[in-house]
């Protein structure tokens, strides 16, 4: 199993890297708006009303490129792989190197299932 993980490692690392990028850039902004600015009344809560959020999620460029859905899918999928990869590294650091194969497969399995569910949900919007 470790040999298989090693083979797909470049791909996982790529998603992990993009997951960090998205997690730090977009999710920080999200937490800032939802966690601070709206409760403090600095941003009108209706800015995140269902209609507006739905319009943003289904927005498309030139009527063909579904930008909203692409961003939403990336937001759902990439941090999952980032989390799985980080937890796997943490597990190895805490002395789990010999169980790394099975733990890695489990974590990436969860990320894969979550990705499929997330993409299906976004496509079905």
């Amino acid at each position, binding site marked *: 199993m*470790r*040999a298989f993980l*090693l083979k797909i*490692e*470049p791909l996982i*690392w790529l998603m992990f890297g993009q997951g960090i990028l998205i997690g730090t850039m977009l999710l920080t902004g999200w937490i800032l708006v939802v966690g601070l600015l709206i409760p403090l009344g600095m941003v009108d809560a209706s800015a995140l009303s269902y209609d507006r959020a739905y319009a943003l999620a289904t927005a498309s460029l030139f009527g063909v490129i579904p930008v909203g859905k692409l961003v939403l899918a990336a937001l759902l999928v990439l941090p999952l792989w980032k989390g799985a990869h980080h937890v796997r*590294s943490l597990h*190895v*650091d805490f002395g789990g*190197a010999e169980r790394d194969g099975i733990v890695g497969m489990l974590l990436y399995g969860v990320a894969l299932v979550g990705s499929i569910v997330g993409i299906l949900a976004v496509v079905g919007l």
Partner: protein
Amino acid sequence: MADKTIVITRFDPDKDQAPRKQEYKVPCEPDWKVLDAINFIKDELDGSVAHRWSCRMAVCGSCGMMVNGEPKLTCKTSINDYGDRVDIEPLANFPIVRDLVVDLDGFMHKFQSVKPWIIRAKEKAADPIAARAALHPVKGTYSQSADQLATFKQFSMCINCMLCYAACPVVANEPEFLGPAAIALGHRYNMDSRDEGQGERNEIFRGEGTVFSCSYANECSEVCPKNVDPAAAVNQAKFGAVIDWAKNLVLPRGGA
């Protein structure tokens, strides 16, 4: 002048089953480094203590030891930064040969495995004018701009002191892990504008126990006495290996 208790790890493979501790009272001068205290013990108190050192100015990389549990270059660390009791042990994550001396064989092997030399498909032909002036065949030279040098200069400043290996949690778990300094060295050649061996090294970097075993602890860069920042090198090497992997996927024969 302050008396300090220096605790040295002693190990004689002929007599000892396991490393033991021995205490020495050392009158430390205000300007002393940790290495001065160890040299005082060796010269004045107990000639049987074994330790490595050479230049005393942080360029030879011989005197790395654990000082109060942290990997330090002992010639660069003031003894008076510590309290009355200073614990000195051989570098962690390495087999002990004797007292404070560790076995370097595994490390040297890792160093060679990243092909730390300039690889070229073909040597450049000699510049005919230079060849005539030298009156004998000379190899061509490879000029490099300041910008090209700057991309890897930092990674070439490593003095092989191995502090990063003693600090790395991945080396502690997997002794076969290629490790920070060796990856930084390989990456240094990958970044060199004169080098053409990126493909070979990236293939090594995608193997087991190399760049992707790194778990981003950043401890190597914390302890590096020459500010090489090996953690940056490892993560840049990951990116290089990934891009190379993607290129091979799209163009399996290098686009040929």
